[in-house]
């Protein structure tokens, strides 16, 4: 066990995790939030009723969520190659990570948005708001605390998923734990990486909860 080798190795892996999870989270929020909004407003009691679209979106989301991540990782390889030019490495891992997290976050966002009191939407309609104004000025700000908690939840999920990114050479802390710690019986390495992951996950949860509480004026 030579720490002078392991410390640079681990920090490199940590940066890979940060990169994969960070970019995937960003993509997930940017694409998953509109999807969540769509799921809410196209509903049969929604602002822009479109039952057919709603059912299609719902089915797609359910389908994507029912695929085990390890399978998704492999199935989307052609798509990944099309988008990033390669199917191996951290950048390539971002594609399946985002694809797995987007439908998850869309559902989480949907739940949060549905919790916004119907009366508020009605008041906004009575004031002459457009659907877009209601989304931007009522639904999103009012659901912000639950959206923040949802993002924390998504990040934690992504960290979990990213451990499997090693399959396509994505690297990261989880990969180190699996390959060196588990497969080569380097127990110390495994313990260190797992502890690191635990600390990061705890930190994100605590941060998310605090932030959600801070923006909640209820």
């Amino acid at each position, binding site marked *: 066990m030579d720490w002078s080798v392991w410390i640079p190795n681990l920090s490199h892996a940590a940066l890979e995790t940060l990169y994969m999870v960070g970019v995937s989270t960003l993509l997930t929020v940017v694409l998953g939030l509109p999807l969540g909004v769509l799921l809410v407003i196209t509903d049969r009691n929604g602002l822009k009723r479109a039952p057919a679209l709603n059912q299609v979106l719902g089915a797609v989301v359910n389908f994507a969520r029912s695929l085990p991540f390890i399978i998704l990782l492999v199935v989307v390889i052609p798509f990944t190659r099309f988008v990033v030019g390669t199917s191996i490495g951290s950048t390539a891992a971002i594609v399946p990570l985002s694809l797995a997290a987007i439908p998850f976050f869309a559902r989480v966002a949907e739940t949060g948005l549905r919790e916004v*009191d119907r*009366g*508020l939407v*009605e*008041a*906004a*309609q*009575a*004031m*002459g*708001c*457009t659907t877009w*104004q209601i989304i931007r*000025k*009522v639904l999103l*700000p*009012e659901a*912000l605390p639950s959206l923040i908690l949802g993002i924390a939840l998504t990040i934690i999920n992504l960290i979990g998923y990213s451990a499997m990114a090693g399959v396509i050479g994505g690297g990261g802390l989880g990969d180190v734990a699996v390959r060196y710690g588990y497969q080569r019986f380097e127990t110390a390495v495994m313990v260190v990486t797992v502890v690191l992951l635990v600390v990061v996950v705890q930190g994100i949860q605590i941060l998310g909860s605090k932030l959600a509480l801070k*923006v*909640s*004026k*209820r």
Partner: protein
Amino acid sequence: MIQISGLSKVFNQSRQTVWALDHVSLHVAPGEIFGVVGPSGAGKSTLIRCVNLLERPTAGEVIVNGQLLTSLPEADLRRARQQIGMIFQHFNLLSSRTVAGNVAFPLEITGYDKRYRQERVEELLDLVGLTEKAHAYPAQLSGGQKQRVGIARALATEPRVLLSDEATSALDPQTTSSILSLLKDLNRRLGLTILLITHEMEVVKQICDHVAILNDGRIVEEGAVHDLIVDPDSRLSQAFFPRGEEVIHTPGTTSAAVTFVGKAADRPVLASLVRRFDIDVNILGGSIQVIGGRRIGRLQIELSGTQVPQALTYLRETGLRVEVK
């Protein structure tokens, strides 16, 4: 100001159709406070929500501010709604915005610039007496304060019509009274026309000029509050002066309900009645209420003596309403 004609709303529930509103017509004159009362489930909420088309009526027309709302395309309807204020039973304030932010909301929607918004918000908070709460969040306010914010918000774009959906139903009696005074005051000072729905007779008593009673989706009585209240047969007057349990009629006496309005309520009519006609008067029950700022009393009496018919005529001649049973 508000003209509703032939308004019907039908809900199709599993296998049965429910007529929430059944050909309702009413007219609210400019500057008037018009109350629609009725038990829960009578269709009041549906009615007021049909006025600004939060609910689409199945049939009928709604005209507000001279505009036929029921025929407006979406974009015009939104503009028309900006000229109709609305307040709610549960206030419906944005929890993520401060008091000032909530009041500014409709101004943002309408597209006023920031400087105007700030001025107008100050003005409005002053109007409802909440200047020092400008930076508080709704969660920090009492129910009465929340409704004041609701009122300020509803008036932000200077609408000439205010719709009130059970605005005081979630408030205690004292707060209700102060909110009603505020509404009355705004009605007088700004010439604001108010259409309100409520299940509380107290609201009608304190501020309404005109009232319609809604039952099972139909208007069963409508008129000026002071006209209805003096009519012993009206539902409104019976609501204020309940006949109570059936009084046991003493044989050989005449029982009558006497309604006193305004000045007549101040004169000692009964005392002079007894002296003049040498009859016995037994008071079975009675009450005096202040309705729309006027004193109105109703007495349930029993008369016995030889000159009872003359006595009744005398009562009628002094301007009282007498109903013999």
